[in-house]
């Protein structure tokens, strides 16, 4: 029980999460499409980080656990970028339907 005694204020984190949901919902109505997209996904990332760091106590963990979060993410990113040529920029080989 690594987080004994020094745990974050869980309510505060929750309030921040709720606030951030509002922000991302509002973003779509106020901002331009690209700006909204960027904001929405930045907010999602921040929210995820808040949950992982505070609720999952990543803050208090050792390098091993950080690696267990980050390495899979890197791997997923590798997969994503490799998929771009085939499915996003339809190849110069005339791969349309």
């Amino acid at each position, binding site marked *: 029980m690594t987080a004994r005694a020094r745990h974050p204020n869980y309510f505060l984190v929750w309030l921040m999460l709720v606030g951030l949901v509002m922000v991302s919902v509002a973003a779509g109505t106020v901002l331009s499409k690209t700006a909204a997209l960027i904001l929405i996904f930045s907010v999602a990332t921040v929210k995820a980080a808040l949950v992982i760091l505070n609720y999952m106590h990543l803050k208090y963990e050792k390098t091993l656990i950080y690696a267990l979060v980050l390495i899979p993410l890197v791997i997923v990113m590798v997969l994503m970028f490799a998929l771009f040529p085939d499915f996003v920029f339809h190849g110069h*080989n*005339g*791969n*349309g*339907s």
Partner: protein
Amino acid sequence: MAEIISGWFPENVSSFGGEIDALFRLILYVTGAWFILTEGLILFFLLRYRRREGRRAAYVAGDNLRQLAWILVPCLIVLLLDLWLDFRGAEVWAKIKGQVPPSDFHIQVTGKQFNWEILYPGPDKEFGTADDVLMENELHVPASRVVRVILKSKDVIHSFFLPNLRLKQDAVPGRAITAWFEATKPGKYPLPCAELCGFGHTGMNGWLFAHSPEDYAKWAKQQWP
């Protein structure tokens, strides 16, 4: 040597086939040398250092750079050879798959369970017009001319394989993939399907007829009088 190796392959009648075969031979020589070296050493060490009375093994742990150099230097050589093979490979790949040379000879080949549907655009060189001709499993082309093949599929994945032209390309439903080849010698060559496509995959076979210019003109005359 090169003749023996060529004997393993079907006759090459492709404008770019020679380069694939040459690359194959290059890799064969490089890896062959390593094969002989490594397997030879294994055999030699096994015999030379087999257990004998009164001789103890040496304590060599490879825990310092001087000893490790014996494996690190070869690894470096492997790396350099790798890069060489990559470099040669990149050139050949760019030539075959990187860009399609200009051509006014287009043919659309559609794979379906379990046939090749070959669509000729006819004299107007346009698909979807009245003079299109559809044939099953017979691909007629003039030799010594770049042929552009637009590959499609109606159902599952098939693979357009011309062994003598060293060409293979999957036909994927939902995509139109362009491949090309140039036959250097007239003749009748097999055109099997190389991707498992169902129970009829075995036997899904067509023919490429590479005609000499005169023969091709004759054939075209019959189709589009």
